[in-house]
């Protein structure tokens, strides 16, 4: 038996012994465990699973053991992931720090920084949020204006960040700030880590068209950030930020893989609400829903193809480039259709007369508009496909 087969066998046995039964069920969004200073568990199985995985170092199985990781090689990580998938194991925690910031620190931070930040991250003790977008720097991220001016051993940070997920619940933020002049834009940007509890940081959740949201605006009013919390070289943060966004994309796809299949399965709704279309109007609606389902299946097959492609070590970058675009637009289109299928039932805001899942659907529909904008708008995705995948020339 080869080493890797051996590893698979051991891993499978360990998971079967250690992953509680209740942690092998689909995870509703309100049962996510977020690592951080204020750990919350809904029940003991969650804690058990969290602690066992933490103690194995398997929150970040590919990190060196020295920083609290699992020390696994790529092949072993793949085995671990496939075994977890086989058992339908939930992720023991959700942690943007591990998925996005961690890999960048491993590559680019100083040894002292690694020793300071990685081990607590690997133990799930810190909840991280991301400070990239600003009100005037949306798709054009490099035009950001939040400034960090050196004053002795500290940077003094002033400005604002927007669209920070869970800014109000996070312990630390990794942020892109302007340490250099405005022009050329990318050249004056640095990546810093800052404590969300530092004086001068304030956070306001943003109300969306769908209601309360996890997005926040974060304000910095003369926030002092020790200069050893700047990662890499001064004014060289743009490349780190781009690397982070790459990890974000990968994390997002992992996230969607783990998440519960959406509550809003069009097929189920179709069976409940339009199973036997009689009027020709209903038939038309039914047909459009079928086409929507077909496109969903074509997308989910494409996601499988990404996996198959990587497995045989072929280039899957083109497929990965379309993933977010297709998924977010399909979701929005699906909700639009659900709205038509459910009519007024899907147009309620609150109160009696609506089932909880109806109100949830309405909220999810409204939220779906944000998904084609956040995390790289559809327009940005199309630009990327056109230029990087198809090699079409830049304007002018």
């Amino acid at each position, binding site marked *: 038996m080869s080493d890797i087969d051996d590893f698979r066998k051991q891993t499978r046995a360990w998971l079967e012994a250690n992953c509680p039964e209740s942690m092998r069920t689909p995870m509703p969004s309100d049962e996510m465990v977020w690592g951080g200073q204020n750990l919350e568990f809904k029940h003991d199985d969650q804690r058990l699973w969290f602690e066992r995985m933490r103690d194995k170092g398997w929150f970040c199985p590919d990190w060196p053991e020295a920083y609290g990781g699992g020390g696994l090689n790529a092949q072993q990580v793949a085995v671990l992931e496939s075994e977890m998938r086989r058992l339908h194991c939930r992720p023991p925690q959700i942690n943007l720090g591990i998925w996005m910031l961690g890999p960048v620190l491993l590559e680019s931070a100083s040894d002292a920084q690694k020793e300071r930040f990685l081990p607590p991250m690997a133990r799930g003790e810190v909840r991280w949020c991301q400070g990239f977008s600003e009100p005037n720097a949306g798709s054009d991220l490099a035009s950001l204006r939040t400034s960090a001016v050196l004053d002795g051993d500290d940077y003094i940070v002033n400005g604002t960040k927007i669209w920070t997920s869970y800014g109000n619940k996070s312990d630390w933020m990794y942020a892109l700030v302007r340490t250099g002049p405005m022009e050329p834009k990318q050249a004056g940007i640095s990546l810093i880590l800052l404590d969300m509890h530092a004086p001068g940081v304030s956070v306001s959740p943003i*109300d969306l*068209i769908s209601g309360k949201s996890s997005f926040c605006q974060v304000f910095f009013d003369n926030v002092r950030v020790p200069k050893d919390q700047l990662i890499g070289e001064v004014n060289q943060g743009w490349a780190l930020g781009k690397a982070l966004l790459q990890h974000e994309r990968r994390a997002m796809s992992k996230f969607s893989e783990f998440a519960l299949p959406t509550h809003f399965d069009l097929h189920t709704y179709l069976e409940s609400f339009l199973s036997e279309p009689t009027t*020709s109007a209903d038939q*038309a609606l039914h047909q459009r829903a079928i086409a929507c389902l077909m496109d969903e299946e074509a997308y989910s097959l494409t996601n499988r193809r990404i996996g198959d492609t990587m497995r045989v070590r072929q280039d899957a970058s083109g497929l990965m480039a379309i993933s977010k675009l297709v998924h977010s637009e399909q979701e929005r289109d699906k909700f639009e259709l659900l*709205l*038509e299928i459910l*009519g007024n039932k899907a147009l309620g805001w*609150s109160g*009696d007369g609506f089932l909880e899942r109806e109100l949830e659907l309405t909220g999810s529909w*409204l939220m779906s508009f944000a998904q084609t904008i956040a995390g790289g708008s559809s327009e940005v995705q199309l630009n990327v496909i056109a230029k990087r995948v198809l090699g079409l020339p830049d304007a002018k």
Partner: protein
Amino acid sequence: MNLVYNEDQQQLLDSARDFLAAKSPVSVQRRLRDEASSSGFCPQVWQGMRDLGWSAVAFEEKVGGLEFGFAGYAPIFEQMGRHLAASPLLSSIVLCGGLVELMGSEEQQQQLLPALIAGELRAALALEESERHQPDLIKTRARMEQGGWLLDGRKEWVADGNEADAWLVVAAVDANELGVFLVHAGAKGLSLEPRTMIDARNMAAMTLQGAKAERIGGCAAEALDLVLDRGRACLAAELLGVSEALFDMTVEYLKTRVQFGVPIGSFQALQHRAARLYVELQLARSSTMAAFSALENQAIEVNERRRLVSLAKWKANICAQRISNEAVQMHGGIGVTDEYDLGLFLKRTRLAQNQLGHTDFHCARYACNLSTKNA
């Protein structure tokens, strides 16, 4: 058929715009929502509309109307859409007033129409029994007892149904005949449950358990069909106004929002998308104008009227859905914040799209009424 506003309509448009800009900016609608208004409209604005004669536009002089003609509602509803103004104009005047005018006895007309026009009596039409518009699917029954009518059934989606003074309820008299019945507030056996919708307007579910009612006229099918067509045309005009407001906001944003050192409206992909929205808007306007023309034309074939009205509602629905989605997308992040008005318009579109016939309903209805087109 005239597909541009004549001078009278243009004057109505101008006065509606001035009035609504002054008295009913979007902030009024936002406040109604934030305060969880149970009526969903502002009584002062509604009073102002009546003062301007909007509730009298289409009625005959003998009942206090202005005899302006129904086409007067095109500019009015267009402007109500543009300013996102809520009012009982559609429910109480166009729909209920229209049914009384078409079906009521002389006495009922004299008794009800002046009161509706004056706003002393606010009525709502209780028609729908399912979540999508199905005017033929009426399970509510009317029965005669001791010389009076009693109603039993349930109406799920009564627009402007909360706190109305009266309702016109569509009920089956027998298997083949629909009737329209007047039920007054406080009637025994009548109960209403408010529904909070995303557009924060007035919607209610209604239960009728032997509720006492007065019948308006006789067999309702024909008049109901015409009055619903009027309502559909008004909704098309409102959706057109909403769409134009969204479109203008978006074009303005494209011109002023700077990214990568240039206004985003200089990006060709967005330019072409905006141009296509403009096309949709124009097709929707032409169709809506034709629907109002058809409703003004006494000599028109019923099938042609139906066809043109369904075309208008269909196209206005599609246009509003597409423009609202593109407006949000082109605005980016700010478009999905509650603070920005765009979302309020978006939410209104979906209610108005669904009311009195969603897109596929009108596509199917158009097909059914197509045969006379080339006749």
